[in-house]
């Protein structure tokens, strides 16, 4: 008890100071990574280069930033507002297809160019990436509201079920969307590729401009962090947390439950749309089979592992798990197979792994591996508090 009282002192100061130092150190690390890969990487010995290609390729670093963006979006829904969403992949898909529709040659019946750097003669709709990102977010946000409005009235278990179904249906629609009443919505299993390069400062970022893309993705992830923290500290964030903590008490304190939950859901969907569009630029295309349930589960595991509602924890959870998913599992698998002369397909167990992590976390460490200091404190004090109240 005495120790925890000491720890509690100056908490407020420490929190804002730590937020700033986190932000600064993250930025410095990002710039360091960027400088390393842009300027130093080619000059390093071959052994170092091949080590990186196996254990930490630049494309994995970029991809993990995409995961961070989406995980922070889901964190608003699950971590802040406490709404269990098992179908977040749907918003990712909407965002991805928005990029496919509006920044590629897919709709080759028309020839619309706006702010894009692709040649004016190429047919299709070619809008600026930045504009497409906003459109993607709006489409996803719109569907978030459409699906959220009727279901957020339900009890949380039902909400989980409905979102689960939604996350299955939407990708199916895209997978089978080659011929919807004669209209090709999604190009079916063939997918849409390539999508246009991102244009910035008069430069086109092709598939190999990983360094520049890294900076853009980092910037977008940083925006998500900023927005998450800002909202958390304000009127809406407080209402979300209150709903997570005690919905009934929140409504008795004047918080409109439906509208507040719907806002959380829509903001989450909005971010998922951005993440989807960014992902499309990362893989230079949209492929229906990638939008599956495991994405929803991995994102959820990132949020839970990082400590629900704790932005910095979620970032670390997302980076870690994105790395395991893209590189760690295959690389460890290869090493394992080579050493023991086996031929186990490790990446195919990713779903099992992340599902397992999720279950274990929920059973044994609900506050995440990296809970906010305060959350940790609470969950430990809670033990002796429950025995205290009995005495009253």
């Amino acid at each position, binding site marked *: 008890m005495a120790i925890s009282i000491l720890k509690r002192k100056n908490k407020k100061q420490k929190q804002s100071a730590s937020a700033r130092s986190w932000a600064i150190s993250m930025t410095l690390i990002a710039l360091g990574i960027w400088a390393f890969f842009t300027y130093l990487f080619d000059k390093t010995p071959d052994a170092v280069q091949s080590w990186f290609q196996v254990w930490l390729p630049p494309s994995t670093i970029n991809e993990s930033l995409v995961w961070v963006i989406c995980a922070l979006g889901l964190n608003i829904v699950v971590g802040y507002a406490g709404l269990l969403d098992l179908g977040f992949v749907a918003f990712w898909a909407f965002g991805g297809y928005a990029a496919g529709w509006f920044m590629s040659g897919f709709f080759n019946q028309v020839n619309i160019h706006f702010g894009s750097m692709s040649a004016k003669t190429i047919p299709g709709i070619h809008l600026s990436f930045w504009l497409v990102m906003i459109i993607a977010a709006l489409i996803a946000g719109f569907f978030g509201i459409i699906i959220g409005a009727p279901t957020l009235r339900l009890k949380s278990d039902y909400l989980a079920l409905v979102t689960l179904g939604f996350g299955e249906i939407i990708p199916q629609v895209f997978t089978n969307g080659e011929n919807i009443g004669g209209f090709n919505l999604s190009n079916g299993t063939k997918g849409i590729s390539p999508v246009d390069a991102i244009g910035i400062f008069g430069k086109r970022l092709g598939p190999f401009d990983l360094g520049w893309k890294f900076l853009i993705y980092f910037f977008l992830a940083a925006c998500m962090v900023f*927005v998450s923290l*800002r909202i958390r500290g*304000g009127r809406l964030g407080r209402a979300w947390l209150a709903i997570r903590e005690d919905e009934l*008490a929140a409504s*008795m*304190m*004047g918080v409109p439950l439906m509208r507040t939950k719907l806002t959380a859901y829509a903001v989450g969907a909005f971010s998922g749309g951005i993440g989807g569009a960014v992902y499309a630029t990362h893989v230079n295309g949209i492929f229906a089979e990638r939008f599956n349930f495991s994405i929803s589960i991995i994102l959820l595991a990132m949020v839970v592992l990082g400590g629900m509602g704790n932005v910095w924890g979620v970032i670390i959870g997302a980076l870690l798990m994105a790395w395991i998913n893209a590189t760690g599992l295959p690389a460890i698998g290869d090493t394992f197979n080579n050493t023991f002369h086996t031929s186990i397909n490790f990446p195919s167990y990713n779903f099992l792994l992340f599902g397992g992590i999720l279950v274990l976390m929920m059973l044994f460490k609900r506050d995440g591996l990296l809970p906010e200091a305060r959350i940790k404190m609470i969950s430990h*004090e809670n033990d002796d508090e429950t025995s205290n109240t009995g005495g009253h």
Partner: protein
Amino acid sequence: MSSILSAEHITVEFGGLVAVNDVSFDIPEKGIVSLIGPNGAGKTTFFNILTGLYKPTSGHVMYDGQEITALVPHKIAAAGVARTFQNIRLFGSMTAEENVMVAMHSHLKASLATTILGLPSQRREEKAAHEEARSLLEFVGIGKTATEFARNLSYGDQRRLEVARALALRPKVLLLDEPTAGMNPQESAVFVDFVHRIRDEKGISILLIEHDMAVVMKVSERITVLDRGEKIAEGTPAEIKSNPRVIEAYLGKGVGAGH
């Protein structure tokens, strides 16, 4: 005396059980009144009706001249009917200050956009809200706990925080459900003065559910007694003390006229 909140012929049924049976009841403007009765009498259920959590099987609730029977809870709260809970319901992993600020939701104007952009108007509002929250915490006597997590507060402080949070709604009526539960006799005595301060300094009308007869008799201007969902008596503390039906209802519970 005009009443700020009145319940007219309220009946509540849960399946076959009649939890509240045709109870009418007034909270006079700037009055302090109490609702008492044995366990299971229907007191908390009655609170839940007044705050819109349950809808009555029949009857009406009037507040400030308007019917609020059908309103959703958050609208009733925002209109100025605040409450505390018999079994404390704070937002455990939020700070004391944040708990209070949640209840300011309906007064604050910040939108998603102004919050993200951090516009000056939003900052000013937020700063004022912080100050109001601090002064409410001071008012209930737990100013030092502002940055502590509600879950870590002592039991008595949690009860006080519930009151501060309710006051943040800037209510006209405050409903307190067994506020002295778990307090020792000294704390309860202090509490009587505290209730008077809320009424006198903030001009709020107060309805208490209370088991501690010493507190009830000292603090209440009028008392209503429920037993098994029925209103069995109503009157001043002196009248209630000597009412045979009340004594009968409480017999065997060791709380009678002599208390």
